[in-house]
């Protein structure tokens, strides 16, 4: 089995737009790594039921790394990333006392913040990555990390820098001042008399004092945790740009996916990340069939699945050629053909992992 020089680094990160199949490719790569003899962990966000079945893991993988029963010289573990649980766990671990912990967990601002809303998933992925990576050396040779299914896939990479930026900005210092008195009124406004009351009612009108009160309370309860956050975010940031971390950029096929792919590639390189390669996934095969014939309209062509497939094959071939000329030769560019069915078991994942490894080896040589 040919070793994969470019994808053997301790941390391999799969990035790309949502729906391009990066979770499956990350899992397949991890299976391959275990079969090459490495102790491997794949961390993923949102695997399909089918992929969970294929790996033989369930919800328990949200709390710990679950071993996958794989006949291989190495080992494979799976961990599912869950923003809310990671956040709760983090607070329990770093809170100085039970009362402080309960204050945070009960805070309405926190409850909304750690729910489904933007940015927090990426942020928590960073925390989870730190959790695992900091003790990983002894347990794993390689971590394969799948990134959250956001449209702005790079939010994840920028999360550590954003956290540090936020912690270093004046906003936090201001937020941590004791703004409110015991009765829940703004302290300053009490000192200023009538004018102060007008300021208070103005603030209440615009943003609502309830919200400000909860935010202030949240930041105060959270304050003891902040120093640790900064250090961890910095360490993860350093890890993500070190040469021990490689990125695999996964793209959909066809010309319409190219602008996003080029944008991601440029951003990764600009930020100093190391790109192992660009994988164009689910490329339709070429068929020897004319996609369109003279008078045939698009709607008529679409009635014949064979001609539709011929058109898709041509489209994807054009897309690959265009991407190759635009992306340049700084990193390998490889394609993975469309499979009618997603892998539903370990042998199928292993086969996909092998195919990806072969194409990587070929693209790196060429």
């Amino acid at each position, binding site marked *: 089995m040919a070793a994969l020089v470019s994808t053997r680094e301790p941390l391999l990160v799969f990035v790309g*737009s*949502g*729906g*391009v199949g990066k979770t499956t490719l990350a899992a397949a790569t991890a299976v391959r790594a275990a079969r090459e003899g490495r102790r491997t962990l794949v961390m993923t966000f*949102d695997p*399909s*039921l*089918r992929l969970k079945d294929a790996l033989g893991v369930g919800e328990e993988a949200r709390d710990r790394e679950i071993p996958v029963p794989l006949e291989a010289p190495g080992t494979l573990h799976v961990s599912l990333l869950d923003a809310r649980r990671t956040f709760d766990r983090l607070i329990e671990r770093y809170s100085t006392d039970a009362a402080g912990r309960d204050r945070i967990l009960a805070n*309405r*601002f926190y409850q*909304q*913040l750690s*729910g*489904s*809303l*933007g940015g927090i998933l990426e942020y928590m992925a960073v925390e989870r990555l730190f959790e695992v990576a900091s003790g990983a050396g002894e347990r794993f040779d390689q971590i394969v990390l799948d990134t959250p*299914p*956001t*449209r702005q896939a790079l939010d994840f990479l920028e999360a550590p820098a954003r956290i540090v930026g*936020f912690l270093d900005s*004046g*906003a936090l210092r*201001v*937020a941590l001042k004791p703004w409110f008195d015991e009765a829940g009124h703004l302290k300053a406004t009490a000192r200023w008399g009538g004018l102060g009351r007008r300021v208070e009612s103005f603030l*209440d*009108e*615009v*943003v*609502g004092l*309830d*919200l400000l009160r909860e*935010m202030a309370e949240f930041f105060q309860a959270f304050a003891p945790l902040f120093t640790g956050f900064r250090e961890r975010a910095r360490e993860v940031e350093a890890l993500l740009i070190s040469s021990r971390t490689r990125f695999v950029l996964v793209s*959909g096929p066809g*010309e*319409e996916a190219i*602008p*996003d792919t080029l944008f991601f590639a440029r951003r990764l390189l600009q930020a100093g990340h190391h790109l192992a390669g660009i994988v164009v996934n689910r490329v339709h*095969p070429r*068929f020897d*069939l004319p*996609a*369109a014939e003279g008078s045939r309209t*698009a*709607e008529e*062509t*679409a*009635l*014949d*699945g*064979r*001609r*539709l*497939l*011929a*058109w*898709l094959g041509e*489209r994807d071939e054009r897309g690959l050629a265009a991407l190759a000329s635009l992306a340049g030769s700084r990193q390998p560019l490889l394609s993975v053909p469309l499979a*009618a*069915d*997603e892998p539903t078991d370990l042998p199928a994942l292993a086969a996909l992992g092998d195919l990806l490894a072969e194409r990587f080896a070929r693209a790196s040589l060429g």
Partner: protein
Amino acid sequence: MDNSPARPLAACQLIVVTGKGGVGKTAVSALLGAALAEAGRRTLVAEVDPRENLHQMLGVAPSGGEILRAGPRLWVQNLSPQRVIDELVSEQVKIGLVARRVLASPIYQQFTAGAPGLKEMAVLGQAFRLLSGRAGTGAPAIDTVILDAPATGHGVALLAAPALVAEVIRSGPIGRMSAAVAELVADPLRTAVVTVTLAEEMPVQEVLELAAALEEKLGRRPDLLVANGLFPPFPPALARDAAESDPAAVLWRRLRANQDRELGRLAATWSWSRIDLPLLPLARGPELVAALRRAAEGQAAWKAVRS
């Protein structure tokens, strides 16, 4: 259970088009916009994506946020949530210098970036302003806003945001607007939810989760489901003859069989008003939108759009 909408989409004020990234939400938003405008509604289609794919679909140059005309009774706008919030604050803080200082302060920026639900609320708030004629001078009078919703997470976070914001901000312009928008979104006679999906496992899973969450949090269901990107049905005649020796036919049959399985999963959960859209050999643009619209209008479920 019959799941047809309380009234046709064409009679609603707000149509929120939800779905996972890459399923064709933008094409569906554009085709609904074109159909409603033709039916006489003054319609604005709004997107929340700096790439402005909606503009491409409607054949309009990127605008950077301005309201642009895309046809008779049809307009398009690219929304930046931050810009909408900034506008609201500027309107409130009437002294220009003070407003600029507020907008530039890191505390304000961190607050508006981090406050739960505020961005989502701002997007819906802009729809509300357009509908109530308060979107500023020069904005056209609008009967219907179609919102091509952001792909991140479930559309539920977006739809639940006004109620969340209204709960914490009880007075003032933002509070009043949040309450009004929450009421609009909860009213099935004024707001419709359209869900777009591909007939693939993950998008279908997300639709089922969205429908369940909508029911739990807002007591309503998607009014219309659009299954996009379908291969044509595989003809039985082909299965008998050439199929095994023709790799294109083999792949066609398997891809369509997988799509049928996922459509079956959707149908098994409850009865939707569902429009099926074909996979078409066309690039993003007005030609694709027109062809998809022709395909949609021929179907029984189109009565959910125009009765």
